[in-house]
């Protein structure tokens, strides 16, 4: 292996509306795992995209093995073995898993001029196995898989042809612990084969585990590059956010008398079976479990977004009868989706319009009477939005900026602001910190705590067990559509939670409190 770096970036600069990258110099060695660390909007994703020809820099040069290199398109960079797996999934749900794996090169898989599903599936199997999807049927539609598995398909797809540089943008954001392990194994294998891996992440523990070197970006500038092992966590966070970090405060007083905020009994839908629990006012109630265990489905069914077969749901004193989001929101529930772009944001609309989406009156009466509320004037409370921007330290140029221009973390803050502005009693957050950096993450935890302190009922579903253990008062563990266990804070233990999540569910867990 020569000393010439695989890819050298010199004085790279890029600006969209505002500068995103300023004068970045970086060398990637052949066969190293190089982590890119930084807050939301620090420029990590843009830098990764420049490496793979997805985005062209405004200034600066790239050198591929010492040769000047100016990819004119994603395709030219891919032909040279430079690839990126983006944070946003580009899986086509209606095509089969195998077709998605080979999507860029389907033409190469023709037999007698036609595509053979069987042959395609056979060729796809080894690649699927390499990302931990050996149990997935390559002929089933990719859309029937969960987000984590879909992302694994994308990684498998990037590895189908020889790859010199693989940029993974937040690869573990939607993976379960088991899938993450599989991914790390694959990254290790790639490194042994001499592939350079650029690993964009917020998760410091992961980065220290798998990377050789790391670079820290702050506000578009490269502030640090060095061996990953030598940087301790506190120092890394200080580099990322430019100031030392406070610690998480102790949890909310556990000894207040409990009053039920949300009671769920015998909830059964197409995806979950006989789920029962009570979440109390003033607590943070967590939902753990593997991807596909039914966390999201449980929250959606409670919220009335999906139809339910049986189940009794009582919020405060009000029984929620139908599968109807208007009734549940008027009863004081909010649900923050895990799919921020697909089901949460109005991407082309501004920050204020997104925040106030649920604020206008929600007509719930039958038709002729509902006209009164439909036809009332819509007022946008801009000062409330501005206050939210301050409270959540949301970075946007103004309240009219389209949210599609914001980074993932700031987009999430817009959705959290929407939830808070509705002044709900029961808040259900599905993956509230997915794709969010450490600084913003802690801010969001503080918001959740503050809500619990105000005697709200806060429910958090997350695939990050550490997150749940840090912020929750109790954790419900789901496995294969059933709620198998509810743990008190004193019993929190990673192994216990994982074991429960992986266990074949026995009889439904009994309610631990009456």
């Amino acid at each position, binding site marked *: 292996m020569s000393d010439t770096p695989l890819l050298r970036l010199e004085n790279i600069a890029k600006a969209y509306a505002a500068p995103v990258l300023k004068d970045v110099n970086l060398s990637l060695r052949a066969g190293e795992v190089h982590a890119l660390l930084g807050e939301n909007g620090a420029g990590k994703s843009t830098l990764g995209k420049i490496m793979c020809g997805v985005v062209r820099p405004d200034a600066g040069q790239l050198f591929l093995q010492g040769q000047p290199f100016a990819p004119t398109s994603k395709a030219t960079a891919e032909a040279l073995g430079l690839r990126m797996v983006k944070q946003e999934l580009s899986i086509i749900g209606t095509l089969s898993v195998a077709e998605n794996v080979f999507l860029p090169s389907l033409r190469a898989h023709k037999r007698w001029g036609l595509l053979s599903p069987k042959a395609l599936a056979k060729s796809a199997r080894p690649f699927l196995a390499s990302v931990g999807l050996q149990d997935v049927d390559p002929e089933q539609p990719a859309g029937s898989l969960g987000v984590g598995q879909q992302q694994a398909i994308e990684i498998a797809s990037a590895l189908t042809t020889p790859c010199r540089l693989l940029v993974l943008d937040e690869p573990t954001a939607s993976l379960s612990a088991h899938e993450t392990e599989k991914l790390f194994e694959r990254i290790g294998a790639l490194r042994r084969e001499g592939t350079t891996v650029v690993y964009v992440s917020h998760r410091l523990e992961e980065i220290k585990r798998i990377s050789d070197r790391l670079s820290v970006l702050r506000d578009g500038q490269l502030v640090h590059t060095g061996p990953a092992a030598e940087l301790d966590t506190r120092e890394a966070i200080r580099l990322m956010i430019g100031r030392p970090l406070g610690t998480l405060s102790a949890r909310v007083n556990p000894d207040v008398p409990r009053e039920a905020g949300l009671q769920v009994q015998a909830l059964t839908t197409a995806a979950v079976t006989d789920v029962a629990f009570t979440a109390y006012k003033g607590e943070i109630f967590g939902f753990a479990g593997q991807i596909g265990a039914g966390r999201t489905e449980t929250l959606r069914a409670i919220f009335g977004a999906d139809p339910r077969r049986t189940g009794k749901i009582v919020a405060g004193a009000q029984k929620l009868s139908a599968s109807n989001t208007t009734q549940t929101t008027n009863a004081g529930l909010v649900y923050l989706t895990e799919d921020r772009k697909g089901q*949460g944001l109005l991407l082309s609309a501004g920050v204020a319009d997104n925040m106030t989406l649920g604020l206008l009156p929600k007509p719930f009466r039958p038709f002729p009477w509902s006209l009164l509320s*439909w036809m009332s004037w819509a007022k946008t409370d801009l000062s409330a939005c501005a206050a939210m921007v301050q409270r959540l330290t949301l970075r946007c140029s103004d309240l009219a900026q389209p949210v599609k221009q914001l980074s993932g973390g700031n987009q999430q803050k817009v959705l959290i602001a929407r939830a808070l502005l509705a002044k709900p009693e029961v808040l259900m957050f599905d993956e509230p910190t997915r794709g969010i950096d450490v600084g913003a993450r802690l801010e969001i935890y503080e918001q959740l705590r503050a809500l619990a302190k105000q005697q709200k009922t806060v429910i958090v579903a997350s695939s990050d067990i550490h997150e749940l253990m840090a912020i929750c008062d109790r954790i419900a563990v789901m496995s294969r559509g059933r709620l198998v266990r509810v743990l008190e804070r004193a019993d929190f233990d990673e192994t216990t939670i994982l074991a429960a999540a992986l266990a074949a569910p026995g009889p439904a867990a009994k309610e631990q409190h009456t």
Partner: protein
Amino acid sequence: MTVNTLPAPRAASLRQTLSHDRFRMLVVIALLIAIFSTATHGFLSVRTFQAIAGQMPALTVAAVGMTFVLLLGQIDLSVGSLLGLGGALVGVAITQWHWPVALAAVFAIAVTGLCGLLSGWLMVQWRLPSFIVTLGMLEAARGATYLVTHSQTQYIGGTLEAFAEAHIAGVPLVFVLALALVAAASLVMRRTVFGRYLTATGTNEEAVRLAGINTRQLKCLTFMGAGALAGLAAVLHTSRLGAADPNAGTGFELQTIAAVVIGGTSLMGGRASVTGTLFGVLIISLLDTGLAQVGAQEPAKRLVTGIVIVAAVIFDNYRHRRSS
């Protein structure tokens, strides 16, 4: 206060871009007028503008309804047939049942509104695409029109024509009504709860549903409104001709969609403008009248109109891709 560092230019910037769009359309309209008045002597005359003012209201009214449907990202193919049905009901109610004009008009609007509501309900209840449901309604309503009129044109005569011929300060009353409707609809779209949720639903329906809004009712109301406005267009159309032709409004749905799209409304939903639609109607009417006056026959007129529609959408796409 730091709040002041975050001004709220939302309304202002929106108004700016709007005036920008409208300005470009005014340029197109001025160009059309310039071309036609150099090509023919009599184009710049009161008679021409009365012809346009007489022709515009029916199209304007139906196109306003269509603007709301397209804002949702849906389509309504039934407005032409509903125009036929509404006209037939007005004609039959006046000539055969001897109802008063006002009652006949209200009846026709109510029936077409219910037809729209039925389309909307079928869509949300069975999760059907609006294209299919309203295609069905297009056929069914035309069939109903033939049944009601026994396929005969209903000559109504004086009572209804008085309405079409009424003028306020030299401007046809129906034209004033259409303008008032445009103003009201624009307010509804921009300033009411209904309009804001409609815009949001056209952008991301699931997000709106998860925010607790009854998008089913929103859709039903929109299609009911479009149906009722097709009925109102039928009343205006019938009153202008003094007769209800069972074939009236054939192809009218496409003309309506063309006017809305020329006006800058996106077929993908989430972006629409009622005033833009008014300009779209004006452009279509100008083309129609102008081409007739330069002596163009029907085939040439349709050829030119087709080109204008596609050119308008290409221009609109180009501009919006560049701005985003």
